[in-house]
């Protein structure tokens, strides 16, 4: 696949035909691999057709890397099978937990970022990367609950995980905005202090105020357009680190494909501008 991934879209079944015929330069698609843990059928037929034309990213939601149980072996095997079949250019998971004692919670749950948690999660990432035969990226979660007992701020915890396991980061700008609002930290400070070389992908998404509490509690719904604040922070981030594959994430309240195309085009133009700015410097070097 010779296409250099620039700005991409989360692939939704209702958009398969539009996605296949979209001629945009640098377009790529991301899926949740768990939605393709089926033996065959139309989902795989469509995904195969998409993959023939476009780079693909696998963004897992179910490995529960921050949990107190080791990554599930059958899950890793199913993921490995998808990787072998579709050859994604990037594989990512979350700094969160969801599985415990045989029950899986469809969410990305928080935990105290302790020294013990760092050791535990690093070993889960090691095990995952070994089983998949690939480096993975870890995404910063959206946070809703102020917990006691942290030994590290989140960005330091993520940087330390990268140092220990060789993994990279998927930086979700919207999650930073949601967490900064809900827990009271500076989104700029967070984003400015993540080393550029660790960032392998960026997510942009929309959020919504909590229906009861309003804007004091923002919820990462993936159900709205990317907010102005997120766009501003994204532009600042790209100006600092240069272009990175960037995804417009939309999982709920899914609009017509054309609406997502417009948001994708906006990210693509920010990426192109950053590449143009860097070119003269490269030429002089």
């Amino acid at each position, binding site marked *: 696949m010779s296409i250099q991934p620039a700005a991409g879209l989360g692939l939704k079944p209702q958009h398969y035909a539009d996605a296949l015929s979209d001629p945009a330069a640098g377009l790529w698609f991301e899926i949740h691999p768990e*939605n393709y*843990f089926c033996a065959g*059928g139309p989902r795989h037929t469509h995904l195969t057709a998409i993959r023939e034309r476009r780079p693909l990213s696998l963004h897992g939601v179910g490995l529960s890397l921050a949990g107190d149980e080791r990554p599930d072996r059958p899950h890793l095997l199913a993921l490995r099978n998808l990787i072998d079949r579709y050859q994604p250019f990037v594989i990512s998971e979350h700094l969160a937990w969801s599985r415990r004692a045989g029950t899986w919670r469809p*969410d990305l749950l928080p935990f105290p970022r*302790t*020294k013990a*948690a760092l050791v535990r999660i690093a070993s889960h990432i090691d095990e995952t990367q070994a089983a998949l035969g690939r480096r993975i990226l870890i995404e910063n979660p959206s946070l809703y609950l*102020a*917990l006691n007992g942290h030994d590290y701020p989140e960005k330091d915890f993520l940087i330390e995980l990268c140092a220990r396991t060789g993994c990279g980061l998927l930086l979700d700008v919207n999650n930073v905005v949601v967490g900064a609002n809900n827990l009271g930290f500076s989104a700029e400070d967070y984003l400015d202090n993540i080393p550029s070389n660790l960032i392998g992908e960026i997510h942009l998404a929309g959020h919504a105020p909590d229906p*009861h509490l309003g804007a004091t509690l923002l919820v990462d719904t993936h159900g709205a357009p990317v907010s102005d604040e997120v766009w501003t922070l994204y532009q600042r981030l790209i100006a600092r680190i240069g272009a990175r594959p960037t995804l417009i994430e939309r999982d709920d309240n899914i609009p017509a494909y054309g609406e997502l195309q417009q948001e994708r085009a906006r990210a693509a133009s920010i990426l192109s501008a950053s590449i143009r700015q860097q070119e003269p410097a490269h030429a002089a070097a």
Partner: protein
Amino acid sequence: MPPHEERAFFDAFDAALSGDAAGLSPWLADDSTAGLAVYRNTIASGAVDALTATYATVVMMTGEDWFRAAAREYVLVHPPREPALLSYGESFEHWLSQFPPAADTPYLAGIARLDWLWWQSWCAADDQLLDGADLAEISPAQLSELTLGLHPSLRIAAFANGTPALWLAHQAPARGGEHVLGRDPERMVFVRLGAQVEARLITAGPYAFLDALSRGASLLEAGQAALAAEPACALHQIIVTGLALGLFTCLTPVKRNTRHDN
């Protein structure tokens, strides 16, 4: 934090998700537990959304509000076991059959079973299809030695009443018209043809034929089963229709279980 306290956090968080947040208080930095409600809502709606997609006909017949309320109760008793929600909810049919608010619509559990089979057919593996010409070579003596491989997407179901026709009527609601639950036994076959799942009513003979093949019977035994269930059925017609529907993948020797006497 020592490892035992790590475990205590996860125990406390689990309990808090189930409604008992008292044990989590050492870890909560302020009094607000509004964040917990966000997690609880996301968890409940994720599982309910998956059931809503799988049990589309039940949703159509009960209305979405009734279904989501019922599904929330099911999720509390049978939470997802794995993140692949495509395979979540197999026990919903049985649970629905014992759910008191569904007592006056006893056919709903059967509708749920057909939705589940449709979904399984839709997700099943792809496979090659048998070429009908291969069947022309068989001699009568080989019928007891050969069997037909069934497509991975094939599912069959038999009911003592007309639930299958009621289910089918809701797949094309545009046709309109009231449909009442028939009293006679009905049977259904599902198979995926291309990207579409084909759902058809079948009579007792073809049902017995496919049921026998699915249990590893030879062509001879499957034919005998079909004729026993429906003496007037035409075996060649079952084969021709099955080939056209893509029910068969291969012609293969019967696997006989080797008996181990100890």
